[in-house]
């Protein structure tokens, strides 16, 4: 059985690589705001992707025990549920961008 340290090293992602992707995605996001394309359908998935990268690789969820992902995922499920339902309930005034 490998030592904990060896296990940790085996599962070490390319942190700098992830960083580069995150930086590029951020630039893309900013770029999108200068283009005449709908923002929400593009930016939200991009943001979620960035968040997922941080969670999976920097927070090591991809390689860690599943229970950690579950704890995180339950929170997201509830939080997202709150966000979506309240957005629907308060619907009409949401998108009058001033």
């Amino acid at each position, binding site marked *: 059985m490998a030592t904990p340290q060896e296990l940790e090293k085996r599962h070490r992602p390319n942190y700098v690589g992830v960083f580069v992707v995150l930086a590029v995605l951020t630039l893309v996001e900013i770029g999108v705001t200068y283009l005449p394309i709908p923002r929400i359908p593009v930016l939200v998935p991009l943001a979620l992707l960035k968040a997922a990268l941080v969670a999976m690789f920097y927070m090591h969820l991809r390689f860690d025990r599943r*229970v950690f992902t579950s704890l995180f995922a*339950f*929170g997201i499920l*509830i*939080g997202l*549920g*709150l966000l979506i339902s309240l957005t629907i*309930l*308060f619907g009409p005034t949401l998108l009058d961008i001033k």
Partner: protein
Amino acid sequence: MASQSQVLTLQHENKRFFGAWIFSTNHKVIGINYLVTAFFFFAVGGIEALLIRVQLGAPNNTVLTPEQYNQVFTMHGTTMIFLFAMPVLVGFANYLVPLMIGAQDMAFPRLNALSYWLFLFGGLVLYSSFVLGGAPDAGWFAYAPLTTVQYSASHGMDFWVLGIILTGVGSTVGAINFVVTILNLRAPGMSMFRMPVFVWMMLVTVFIMLFALPAVTVDAILLFIERNFGALFFQASAGGDPLLWQNLFWFFGHPEVYILILPAFGIISEVIPVFSRKPIFGYAALVYSGIAIGFLGFTVWAHHMFAVGLNPVADAVFGLDSMIIAVPTSIKIFNWIATLWDGKINLKSPVLYAIGFIAMFVIGGLSGVSLAIVPVDWQMEDTYYVVAHLHYVLFGGTVFAVFAGVYYWFPKITGRLLSDRLGKWQFWIMLVSFNLTFFPMHLLGLMGMPRRVYTYDAGTGWTLFNQIETVGAFLIAVAMLLFAYNLIKSLRGGEKAGNDPWEGQTLEWTTSSPPPANNFAKIPTIHGRRPAWDMKQKPALQTASEQPEPSSSVEASGNDLAKERSFYPTLLALGLMVASYGLIYTVWLSILGLAIAFIGIIGWVNEPV
């Protein structure tokens, strides 16, 4: 058994017993602290209830002014929910969960102590409002904009916010402790599906706490900022919306009621099999229905808002969901009845309360489901019908379950039995007086009596029922006094209980009464759902070779069991309390409080483990 000498050893090791007790990090001591403090607040909340009933005992009564009445009913609700029901259930959990899973303590004993102190200090901050300008007076649910400075000028609502946040942090921290303890510290052989149902219910409950409390914390923060920094979240004229308050509040508030009932379900699920002398019927169904309730509980919150003008689709969705949630609850009721069925019932006080629970809770559940029908709710909203419903589930439910638990586990905690004869008297008086007090409220609600009104006119025709209810309330008080008498009498000279007076099925019954400081000298290995039963029937299974030494592995997973007391959790909680006062009075207090808290944290981190 060595228990007496071990308790004495604990006392000798810690020269000043009071200091040992008050700063103890042992889960049993903390559990008792929770239970005692919660019952103290139960008495306070009960007196508030009696004040309400006295005021309403006659039309146009002048015992309380309207302003006083508002404070009393607000504090009654807030106290009963946050300072009695939640803590008493957590108190049971604190005492029992480590014992039931074969652990020596919670995963984080000092964090456990912190939870208790935050509860106590949060309660004290809330109650200090009475002498600092007036208690909160806008209902336990604190609807904005009634709670904004324009309509609630005293600091009462600010104290409400601080009380909620302090106790909420305590609950959150406690919830984390329970999650880790239950998932990580189970004895060898205790898989998830061999855990007692009470432990499962606590696991679901603490998950609900973790994901519901943040919503009310944010809501309370928004209210505080509105009151003290002039924000406009709830001002319609500025584009704000009172419904923001309501949505965030009930997003917490509804899961909160499942926090209040699931542990009670757990207690009932422990008591009924033991006194039926059978295994619980439908263990898996009880577990899965508990999980289902926990999840579904997050999807029904707007049924508290049917009357605010939501669109019909929202009404329909929430109404439907509120009916669906009755299903897993009913499954539990059937499981309990099936357990009792054909059992060799040992009709002692605990199971009497459990049966009372089932009957009363079903009534409460039925009124609840009727309220899920949107047009019915439109008629019943803010009437005494809702007051009836909530008391049938919270008193007829939770409180009855609490007494079942008290009668059941008192012998384990103290080593003495409560008088069963007095217990039965208390039960019957309580059952009759409870129904006398709250059943007429259904009818009053149907007759149109609104809730939260400080008086009513003689011509309404509501007088008789109100009088009956007031008499009933005082009879409840009689039952409670009887309980207090039983408690004191039994503590002084009650019958010695021995390890296992009820022929229990779960691990706590394999220890002495009270258990030794570290619960189990050797962590047992578990082979089934009823380890105490197994150990009695098949003692050969427990061989020394099956018992791995506990301490090294427990330390390796980062627990701090070595010290049984610490002053730093108290200091940290004290600092947070002082900082809270600073938020109302002066920022210098907050800075002082944070400094105290900081010292507490540094001491904690550097304490030798």
